């Protein structure tokens, strides 16, 4: 039986970490994820976890300490945001290439500059090709649930990849909402213990980690990472199924909201999906066939499944909370368009860059997207597929 509580997104992530009780947490505080290590260090101080908390001097060191701890054979976790993740960048690649299932709570925030501490996804998009599994969370409940599932996915012998759980800075991390928690004992049972086959502290079987890997080998090791990322998709589904059997809460690779009979849909991630659901419900009352596809698993990207779920539509809008500044479209837009193209399906599609630097995205904004889509459904034409939502500009 779940426990009803009221927690912010940061509290939800910290609570999950407490229940997981990892061997090591190494973190450096940065807004808006500061509260996660802050709450966690309280758990360490009052003895509710056995974790070794390493108060490092930078995020580069935080990820380095996690790499050391995981290589040694322990479970390591951390949390960060935006420029903290930027400073980790070098070690982010080391973590995934050494195949260390570190779990990171990423509270999404705009990467400076100019300086901004509010939500967008530019931090996550900056590491989207680094070989980390990336799960996105609409609200505190999903941030909590994704964290509980993280180790089972990351540590699976066919995966062995680090994993980050994303949630929207301030919008989710600092909003207190209802949440269902599971008991400490049951979490412990579900997450299980970590017993890697090879680890540095095994003095009977000495190993070397991260050796020189030149022309004859790096290519194959990168391809191994790629295969592990492909394998992760099935493992995520299996773990999510077990999670549903335990808690009753269903998770897939993405959530389809009133999509099956929809004519047009928005594709987005994190908290904006909540706003979109409210708009979809209202449009449906007026007989407008609107739907939503909310990406949960962004890496590995479920290309085939996304293409199949969207192929019946007459128009699609993909919302990117990070501008790739490449004159072609946001990262999610590129992933969705190429998914459909490769599956030989064509649906008129348009991209909106929105919510940059914490700009509010209201129901009215989302409704305007569906209005644009209605027009595309009518004409079948997409003019200017690379658009902004909620941007101030001169009237023309």
């Amino acid at each position, binding site marked *: 039986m779940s426990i009803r509580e009221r927690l912010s997104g940061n509290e939800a992530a910290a609570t999950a970490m407490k229940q997981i009780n990892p061997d090591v947490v190494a973190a450096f505080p940065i807004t808006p994820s500061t509260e996660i290590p802050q709450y966690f260090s309280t758990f360490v101080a009052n003895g509710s976890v056995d974790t070794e908390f390493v108060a490092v001097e930078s995020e580069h060191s935080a990820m380095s300490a996690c790499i050391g701890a995981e290589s040694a054979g322990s479970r390591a976790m951390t949390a960060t945001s935006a420029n903290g993740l930027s400073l980790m960048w070098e070690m982010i690649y080391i973590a995934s290439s050494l195949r260390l299932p570190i779990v990171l709570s990423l509270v999404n925030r705009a990467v400076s500059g100019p300086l901004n501490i509010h939500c967008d996804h530019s931090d996550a998009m900056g590491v989207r090709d680094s070989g980390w599994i990336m799960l996105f969370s609409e609200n505190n409940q999903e941030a909590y649930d994704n964290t509980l599932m993280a180790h089972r996915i990351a540590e699976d012998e066919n995966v*062995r990849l680090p994993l980050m759980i994303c949630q929207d800075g301030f919008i989710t991390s600092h909003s207190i909402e209802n949440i269902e928690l599971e008991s400490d004992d049951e979490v412990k049972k579900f997450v299980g213990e970590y017993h890697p086959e090879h680890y540095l502290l095994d003095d009977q079987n000495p*190993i070397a980690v*991260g050796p020189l890997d030149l022309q004859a080998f790096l290519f*194959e090791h990168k391809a191994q990472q790629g295969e592990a990322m492909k394998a992760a998709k099935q493992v995520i589904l299996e773990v999510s199924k077990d999670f549903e059997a335990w808690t009753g809460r269903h998770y897939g690779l993405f959530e389809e909201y009133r999509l099956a009979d929809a004519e047009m849909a928005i594709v987005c991630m994190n908290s904006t999906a909540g706003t979109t659901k409210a708009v979809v419900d209202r449009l449906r009352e007026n007989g407008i066939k609107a739907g939503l596809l909310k990406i949960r698993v962004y890496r590995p990207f479920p290309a085939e499944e996304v293409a199949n779920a969207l192929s019946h539509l007459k128009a699609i809008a993909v919302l990117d909370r990070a501008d790739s500044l490449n004159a072609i479209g946001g990262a999610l837009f590129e992933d969705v368009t190429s998914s459909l193209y490769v599956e030989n399906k064509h649906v008129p599609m348009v991209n909106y860059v929105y919510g940059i630097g914490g700009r509010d995205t209201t129901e009215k904004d989302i409704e305007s997207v569906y209005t644009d889509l209605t027009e595309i459904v009518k004409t079948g034409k997409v003019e200017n597929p690379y658009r902004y939502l909620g941007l101030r500009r001169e009237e023309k």
Partner: protein
Amino acid sequence: MTKIDKSTPMENLTTGGDIYEAGNARDFKTGDWRSMRPVFHGDKCKQCGLCFPVCPENAIPVKKEDLKRTDFNYDYCKGCGVCSKVCPFGAITMKEEGVDQ
């Protein structure tokens, strides 16, 4: 552990390139990196023992029986010249690799 070389397919490589045995640096001969070659002059050597501890490649063999050094192991010597610098007796000189004198 199965032997891994340049023909091993990706499926048979260890995960992440981890190496599950100790001391395998000897499988990787680095002597051909050398551009300068140390030459050992046994007649000048007093067996003082200063050279072999500074060799980064363990390329100066020392006999277990009498603790005396012998000629260089050119399979691993990279020609860094540190031994030549520390030798007080001029018993190690450096010459360009591949050039006869």
